[in-house]
């Protein structure tokens, strides 16, 4: 499903070069949910962005469904993101000018695989049925994040990447969101890699990777 | 700019067309709209006595008139050329001649030089009364702009020679001397040329015995040339029958010294009116019986969007004439305001010779 081999990334600033990742390697199996934890600035988000193709690695490889995706041009990486990956961010990343229904469906539409039955099931499971005509700004934080999860899953991705999806949510809501995530992942058979700094949430997933000093421990 | 609607030479020509001044000898065409009355103009009647030099000049009481010269020329290498010089006069209204710009005469000139490969032509227009164009009987001069035909004194009134003939246009020009020993020839019956069974006719005389010498210029190349030339003088007021749609006219210089003029007026009903004169080497002009003349198209050329019969079989049974006529240049089309085909021809058969062919009234191809 996902295989990361010897991935490295460094950032250059005026004063120094910061090695964020030094040869990271791991794998996520289909249906498996993995938590990625670490201190602030340990490179969790960077790793996730590299896997999503939002950023380019200095070295190493990322394999998604048996295909190496490192070094692909932007258009190919975009196509991969669109069809095989689902991304969830801390800031929800919804389109403010689209209604809940349109937000939920639009990545699937972009991917050309809009499945009304699956969308219906998602909106029911995510508790969005009554909110479909609203706009993101009219939703609570938890509702917005549930919508973001729905949008990411609507495309039936092979891999779901979540970057602190509960960072803006209170504890109870966060628990509920992670539960939902885990259930939906298990049900759709995709892999989940979730960045979190909460050990409590990390414990709710199948496995946990800890990033520290640029490597996994 | 819409050329058809512009007040221009083209528009003028359109006006001429309406007035009946059509271009070429083909003024004698029904489609020129002249099938109607000739009220106020002088009438053409048989038995006129021609007087020279007076009849070299214009006859403004008649509606239309022309001075028409064609020449079949060769250069020192035997290369063939044709030359055309034409001055038409048309009166817009009958009555006494008015002075200056009020004068009712309109003049049109056509000139062309033809070779096997090239056909260059030009046209020009003028109003009478101010001197831009006109004809003086004696000393003879006919002119429009810089094109002129004028006596080279001393002029023989009987032979209408010698004359100097000049014209130039884009890509061509010529300056020829016309000499003739024999007297003028009256066409038809003593100069009364019938154009239909119903009495339409013109006054018509010719000088078929001209020898032209001089120079022609074609696309910048000037060559010395000589050869036989033919002058036609014709005037009338109503030369057409209403149902006549066009005509095919030819003049022949036969090797034996005989000269032949034939024409066929096409009628709307598909029938034809034939006429012609045989001018023997003795200078006697005899009108040919209509039923003695046969003119049959053999081959056609698509030119200027029209299908024109440029190859003919011509026969005059009474004279033992049976020849095939072929054009020097089948594309000798005069794309003037009033368009027609006019060019030199060569004939072979019972007789050999050269001549000129004119065809009008052929509309769209097919």
């Amino acid at each position, binding site marked *: 499903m996902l295989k990361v081999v010897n991935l490295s990334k460094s950032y250059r600033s005026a004063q120094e070069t910061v090695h964020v990742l030094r040869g990271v390697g791991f794998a996520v199996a289909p249906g498996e949910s993995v938590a990625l934890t670490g201190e602030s600035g340990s490179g969790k988000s960077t790793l996730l962005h590299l896997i*999503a193709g939002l950023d380019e690695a200095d070295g190493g490889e990322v394999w998604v469904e048996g295909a190496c995706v490192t070094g692909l041009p932007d258009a190919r990486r*975009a196509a991969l993101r669109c069809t095989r990956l689902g991304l969830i961010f801390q800031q929800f990343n919804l389109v403010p000018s689209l209604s809940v229904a349109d937000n939920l469906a639009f990545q699937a539409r972009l991917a050309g695989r809009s499945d009304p039955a699956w969308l219906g099931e998602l909106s029911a499971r995510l508790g969005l049925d009554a909110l479909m005509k609203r706009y993101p700004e009219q939703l609570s934080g938890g509702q917005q994040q549930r919508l973001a999860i729905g949008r990411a899953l609507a495309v039936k991705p092979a891999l779901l990447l979540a970057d602190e999806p509960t960072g803006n949510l209170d504890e109870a809501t966060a628990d509920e969101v992670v539960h939902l995530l885990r259930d939906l992942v298990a049900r759709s058979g995709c892999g989940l890699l979730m960045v979190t700094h909460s050990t409590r949430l990390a414990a709710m997933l199948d496995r946990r990777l800890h990033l520290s000093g640029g490597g996994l421990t | 700019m819409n050329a058809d609607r512009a007040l221009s030479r083209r528009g*003028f020509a359109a*006006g001429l067309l309406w007035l009946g001044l059509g271009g070429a000898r083909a003024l004698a065409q029904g489609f020129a709209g002249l099938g109607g009355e000739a009220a106020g103009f002088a009438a053409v009647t048989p038995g006129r006595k021609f007087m020279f030099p007076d009849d070299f000049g214009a006859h403004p009481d008649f509606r239309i008139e022309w001075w028409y010269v064609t020449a079949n020329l060769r250069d020192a290498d035997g290369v063939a050329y044709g030359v055309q010089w034409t001055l038409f006069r048309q009166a817009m209204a009958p009555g006494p001649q008015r002075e200056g710009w009020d004068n009712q005469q309109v003049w049109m000139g056509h000139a062309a030089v033809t070779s096997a490969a090239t056909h260059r032509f030009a046209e020009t227009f003028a109003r009478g009364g101010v001197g831009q164009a006109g004809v003086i009987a004696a000393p003879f001069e006919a002119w429009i702009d810089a094109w002129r035909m004028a006596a080279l004194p001393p002029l023989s009134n009987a032979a209408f020679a010698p004359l100097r003939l000049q014209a130039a246009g884009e890509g061509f020009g010529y300056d020829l001397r016309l000499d003739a020993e024999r007297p003028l020839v009256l066409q038809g019956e003593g100069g009364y040329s019938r154009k239909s069974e119903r009495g339409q006719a013109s006054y018509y005389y010719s000088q078929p015995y001209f020898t032209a010498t001089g120079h022609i210029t074609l696309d910048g190349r000037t060559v010395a040339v000589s050869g036989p030339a033919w002058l036609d003088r014709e005037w009338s007021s109503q030369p057409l029958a209403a149902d006549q749609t066009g005509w095919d006219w030819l003049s022949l210089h036969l090797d034996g010294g005989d000269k032949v003029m034939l024409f066929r007026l096409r009628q709307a009903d598909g029938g034809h009116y034939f006429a012609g004169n045989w001018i023997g080497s003795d200078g006697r002009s005899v009108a040919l019986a209509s039923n003695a003349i046969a003119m049959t198209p053999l081959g056609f050329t698509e030119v200027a969007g029209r299908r024109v019969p440029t190859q003919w079989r011509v026969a005059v049974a009474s004279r033992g004439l049976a020849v095939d006529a072929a054009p020097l240049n089948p594309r000798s089309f005069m794309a003037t305001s009033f368009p027609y085909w006019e060019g030199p021809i060569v004939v072979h058969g019972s007789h050999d010779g050269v001549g000129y062919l004119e065809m009008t009234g052929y509309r769209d191809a097919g």
Partner: protein
Amino acid sequence: MRRALWVLAVLLSHWRRHPLQLATLLVGLIAATALWSGVQALNQQARLSYDRAAALFGGARTAMLIDPAHATFTQAAFVALRRAGWPVSPVLEGRVEVGGRSLRLIGVEPVTLPPETAAGPAVGRDDLHAFVAPPGRTLAAPETLRDLGLTAGATPRIDQSAELPPLQPQPHLAPGVLVVDIGVAQRVLGKPGQVSRLLVGNTTRSARELPESVAGTRLRWVAPDSETDLARLTDSFHLNLTAFGLLSFLVGLFIVNSAIGLAFEQRRSTLRTLRACGVSARLLNVVVVIELVSIALVGGLVGLVCGYVIAAALLPDVAASLRGLYGARLPGTLSLRPQWWFAGIAMSVLGALAAAGASLIRMARLPLLAAAQPDAWRRAQRRWLLRQGALAAVMLIAAVGVLIFGDSLLAGFAVLAALLLAAALALPVALDGALQLAARGARGALPAWFWADSRQQLPGLSLALMALLLALAVNVGVGTMVRSFSVTFARWLDGRLAADIYVSAANDTQAIEIRRWLAARTDIDAVLPGARTEIRIGGAPVEITGVADHATYRDNWPLLRATADGWDRLHQGDAAFVSEQLSRRLHLDVGDRLRISGGWSVDVVGVYADYGNPKGQIAVGVDALSRHFPETPQTRFGLRVAPEHLAGVMAALREAFHLDARQLADQATVKAESKRIFNRTFAVTAALNTFTLGVAGVALLTSLLTLSGSRLPQLAPLWAIGLTRRRLAAIELMKTMVVAFVTALLALPLGLLVAWCLIAVVNVKAFGWRLPFQVFPAQLLELLGIAMLAALLATLWPVFKLARMQPATLIRIFANER
């Protein structure tokens, strides 16, 4: 493809949620396109009619032969040239009066007329005979027939003796022109056998092959001119219009720029989300451009329709101006070519792309991952100000350079453009300086914040303020010029129209009768004979006016400079005054010598103002004029009459000689007519001025709307620490008004500079005269007030929104810090 459509749908959803923004964007596009294309439509219309007039029988489009020494020459020259093979065609032209209107009568010879010169009239095949054969036809544009109140077939009488052939409407003909056969023209104009010129048709021959003398006439070859006389004369007028159109276009683009900038800012997160969801950068860029172009197309189309309306509304004034200033006649209805529509749409799209350029580039470079916003706005702003200042300095240097080295109308406008741009670029620097100065003097926390925040607001407002500055400066400039002209013109009219009654007899015979009649009366103080003829100097028409030897002229003639004995020399016959225009064109000044015609040379002893006359003019003694040009009609004279006898003399004259309003007028009427023409001349300028100011107001409004959203984070803390929304709104209003006021103050000196440029550079090049520069303080105050009103109106709505804002919105700022 489907993916692109989905992306487009997502992008467009933004406008559905923000219709006002879309409206703003469209208003900008429409304003830009409308004014520009409206002006273009007017110019095009005018040029079309000049071309029509010019192509008509060889204005200047055809090579022609003229006799430089005489107005007409013998038609024998025509025949001689034809017989020498030259494709020439004769034209006789003159003026006739029909129903009190002076019209151009052109006699042509249709049979020889070169086809390329006959753009105007269309004589169908049926008409040729009618045109040349008696009685002939008089072709005239339908407008002309309408003006004359005549219908087709009428035979207008042009004086006691002559009558024109029956009128026939001819749509392609220029207005004010009558076309007849040359024979008719010779008879009607009393010039048998004469022609004015010979048109030369297409020929491979050149002027060099022309014989020195043709039929005893020395003809001069006038080469065809790509530009017509009218086009040249009216160039300045059209350049003026174009400059205004361009200014409006740019101001409109300011609006587009700010609307697109705002939309970009608000959609930044959407764009990121789209990228994260798998839309490639290229697809996104393409779709954004498609979206922009589509909107530009819509705006452009609506703008074109508005442009058409504007043009149609302004056309009567433009037509009146052109007629009054140059004698150019425009048809009363607009006819637009397809090119106009295409050009307008292209301008709209290109303008939108240019205005969106910065946003598009920023979007293309948009990092996929949100970077922390650098907090160093202050440093960035300083850099920005420095760059603006440097650019402004460069533009200013360019302006000065062009002013010194340029010597054309275009250079004049280049100076203006560079000057305005320099000022616009320098505006933020000046405002920043002013605000900094104010901040230094501020006491207390709130005032300190007030000034500091105003400075921070500058970059967002600067475009709109620049638009305001430009619009206002141009208003001041044009207003000052027009007023200067108005005052000068009125004074000049007083000088030139010194006689009390003006009489123009129908012909010399009547003139003699009238003079005899006048001599017998006792209530006439003086009869001042005048005469006028026209010659060509350097290919251009020049009027010669004969002036009587009388104190009336000596006292009033608007001389700019002259020798002390100027008037005495003038009446001796060997000296002349020249008009300012002619003096500039021929580089003539007092002391120079001028050859008027073959045997007549004069000393220039004075230069006088001759405003509004497109032709150069020479004033000589009336006796000398009749001596050298004996054919000049002696039909005009002025009368000095005591005011109490004025009405009586007028009535008696009218009664005795049946003179109509064109032949007999008193000073007051002539003055009123002149001023009326003058006023209409600048009506267009004034209208465009108003439009421009309006557009600047809209630009300000949109900028403020744009700012009001993004400024909430700055205002929320103040609200939190206890300022009421109403108070905040008042502060916001005050801030905008302060910067607008400073801008308007800066616009005043700039406007005066613009006025100086217009008067000292542009007018001189365009019209050939220079006005005294005058400043009108009341007018400046009025414009200042209008500008402040526009600013106030533009500010009210955003401020009202702020005052009515729900507290929750302000709270969310804290909850949702961007």
